[in-house]
């Protein structure tokens, strides 16, 4: 057998490990093993690639060293509450790598032959997809990261590090565009007039990305038209590149225009839709990898890339279903109050406020308490305090459970991670469909920082923007306590009649502070 055969066998082993990894990741007991197996598979794939052949090591070692150090320090330091941002930014690096590998493959092939690329039609199409999907993923993920870290497309004053990333990244993007335009447009004696034009257009597209990234709002007039235009242009340039694959400037132009598309698609996505966006970008990062696999004819890239692509699509579908919205609606639609939305003052006429002492008395008599967390709990970092309260109640023999809406938070499974961080056993986390059947037996339901996911309007008003969205039926509980800072609307921008229901009491306070006060009151009353 040749070295290449051994290498391909090693790739096969790695591919099998990846599949088993994902299979094991689907069960709490085997998940840790699964992750180890995946990492082991990756090590095999990397070892098989670099061993047994003559290599130029310089850039391999520098790149691998720098990447490992950055990846390690990011992952080791990140807080559990910042997990959505972390997952968002990691997606982007995968996408960025695909763009660069596509470029390197194209340049290498073209310069080896002098003219043309020697690539078949399928490799050319794959190269185009590598650039297109990769660049959409890279810039889309950066925007998702920026929105989750709350420094992109916002009006308020930024902290120092936020400013540094926001303007630094925009400036680097713009400078890369300018540098490329100057290098080809002014300094390259061999560049044809057409090359120069394309290079300057590339500069324009990168400047455009940089400019949009510094905007202070997430929508502007004609944005949807721009999205379609960027999508059409990306495909158009892609087709041109397939017809003229040796045209390297065209490749960078494609990367630039797809980058504009990625930014536009993600920047208008609001908080509650973030889980869909993150899952979708995850899928893209895999598909970009698979496309790269087609470019260099490598099976392990295709297998791993399509596994990730598939898992991202499955998650996206679960998230969309949990919101009763289509993917097009998330990407292109807008969400907000409609003309039929009832007036908030009218709805909230009968709202009753309560105090920590009153809540403590109610909890004292309760047998079954359900806590319904939302993004507000994550913002207030109240998960540990929530667990303390639950522990206190459990000591008294009260049954405490948690009802988790699939899209609560900013990424799929966000609430589960936070509650797990606070040491809450996952057996106590109940899925929406399960807990809804038992909700009428629940004595006290405590809503911590959630709004739209408990809004009964979704079931009653077919004209509401959230009509048909499955909700946690908190209104069925004997008593509902809502901990919220004010009566401000949730992401959907509509009032929530639950807050004014007969069995509902509002406790206006910051999530963490509120629970701490309740804990004190419970301790005093016993």
């Amino acid at each position, binding site marked *: 057998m040749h070295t290449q055969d051994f290498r391909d066998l090693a790739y096969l082993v790695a*591919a099998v490990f*990846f599949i088993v990894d*994902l299979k094991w*990741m*689907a*069960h*709490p007991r085997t*998940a*840790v093993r*699964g*992750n180890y197996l995946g*990492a082991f598979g*990756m090590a095999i794939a*990397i070892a098989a*690639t*670099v061993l047994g052949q003559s*290599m130029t090591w310089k*850039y*391999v070692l520098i*790149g691998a060293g*720098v990447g490992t150090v950055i*990846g*390690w320090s*990011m*992952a*080791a330091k*990140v807080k*559990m509450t910042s997990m959505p941002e*972390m*997952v968002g930014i*990691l*997606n982007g*690096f*995968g996408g960025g*790598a*695909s763009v*660069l*590998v596509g470029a*390197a493959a194209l*340049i290498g092939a073209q310069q080896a032959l002098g003219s043309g690329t020697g690539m078949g039609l399928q490799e050319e199409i794959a190269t185009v997809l590598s650039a297109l999907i990769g660049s959409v993923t890279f810039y889309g993920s950066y925007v998702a990261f920026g929105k989750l870290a709350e420094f992109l497309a916002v009006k308020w004053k930024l902290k120092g590090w936020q400013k540094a990333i926001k303007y630094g990244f925009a400036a680097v993007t713009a400078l890369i565009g300018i540098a490329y335009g100057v290098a080809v447009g002014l300094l390259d004696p061999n560049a044809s007039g057409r090359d120069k034009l394309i290079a300057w257009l590339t500069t324009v597209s990168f400047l455009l990305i940089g400019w949009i990234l510094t905007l202070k709002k997430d929508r502007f007039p004609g944005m949807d038209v721009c999205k379609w235009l960027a999508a059409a242009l990306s495909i158009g340039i892609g087709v041109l590149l397939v017809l003229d694959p040796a045209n390297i400037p065209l490749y960078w132009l494609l990367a630039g225009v797809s980058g504009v598309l990625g930014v536009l698609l993600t920047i208008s996505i609001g908080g509650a839709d973030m889980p869909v966006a993150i*899952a979708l970008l*995850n899928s893209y990062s*895999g598909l*970009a990898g698979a496309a790269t*696999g087609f*470019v*260099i004819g*490598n099976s*392990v890239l*295709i297998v791993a*890339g*399509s*596994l*990730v692509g598939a898992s991202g699509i*499955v998650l996206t579908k*679960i998230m969309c279903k949990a919101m009763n919205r289509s993917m097009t609606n998330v990407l292109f639609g807008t969400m907000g109050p409609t003309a039929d939305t009832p007036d908030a003052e009218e709805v909230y006429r009968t709202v009753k406020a309560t105090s920590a002492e009153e809540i403590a008395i109610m909890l004292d008599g309760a047998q079954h308490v359900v806590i319904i967390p939302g993004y507000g709990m994550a913002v207030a970092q109240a998960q540990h305090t929530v667990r303390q309260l639950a522990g206190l109640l459990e000591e008294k023999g009260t049954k405490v459970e948690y009802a988790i809406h699939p899209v609560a938070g900013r990424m*799929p*499974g966000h609430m589960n991670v936070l509650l*797990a961080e606070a040491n809450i056993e996952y057996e106590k*986390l109940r899925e929406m469909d399960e807990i809804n059947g038992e909700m009428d037996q629940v004595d006290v339901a405590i809503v911590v920082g959630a709004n739209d996911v408990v809004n009964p309007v979704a079931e009653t008003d077919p004209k509401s923007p959230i009509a048909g969205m499955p909700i946690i039926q908190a209104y069925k509980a004997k008593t509902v306590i809502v901990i919220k800072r004010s009566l401000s609307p949730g992401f959907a921008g509509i009032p929530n009649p639950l807050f004014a229901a007969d069995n509902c009491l509002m406790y206006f306070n910051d999530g963490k502070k509120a629970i701490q006060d309740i804990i004190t009151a419970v301790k005093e009353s016993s």
Partner: protein
Amino acid sequence: MTFVTALTVFVLAIYVGVEVINKVPPTLHTPLMSGSNALSGITVVGALILAGQPDVPELVHVIAGVAVAFAMINVVGGFLVTHRMLGMFQKKR
């Protein structure tokens, strides 16, 4: 690898992926996402081949070298962060 072979691998892997992942409990959505995300760093293989290939212009090495760094951030960061998260689920009181 011929195009049809590659396409066969692609289509089958998509099916395997959908089948394997379809029944994941919501608790594991985030670790699954970051774990599968680490796998998308497999692009590192392509980047390594090009960054180490002799007889190609320096420019290819530089671009592919940056790609190696990007992909390694994805791989190392993805696996480590998943491990940390799963550790949270494993803790016993």
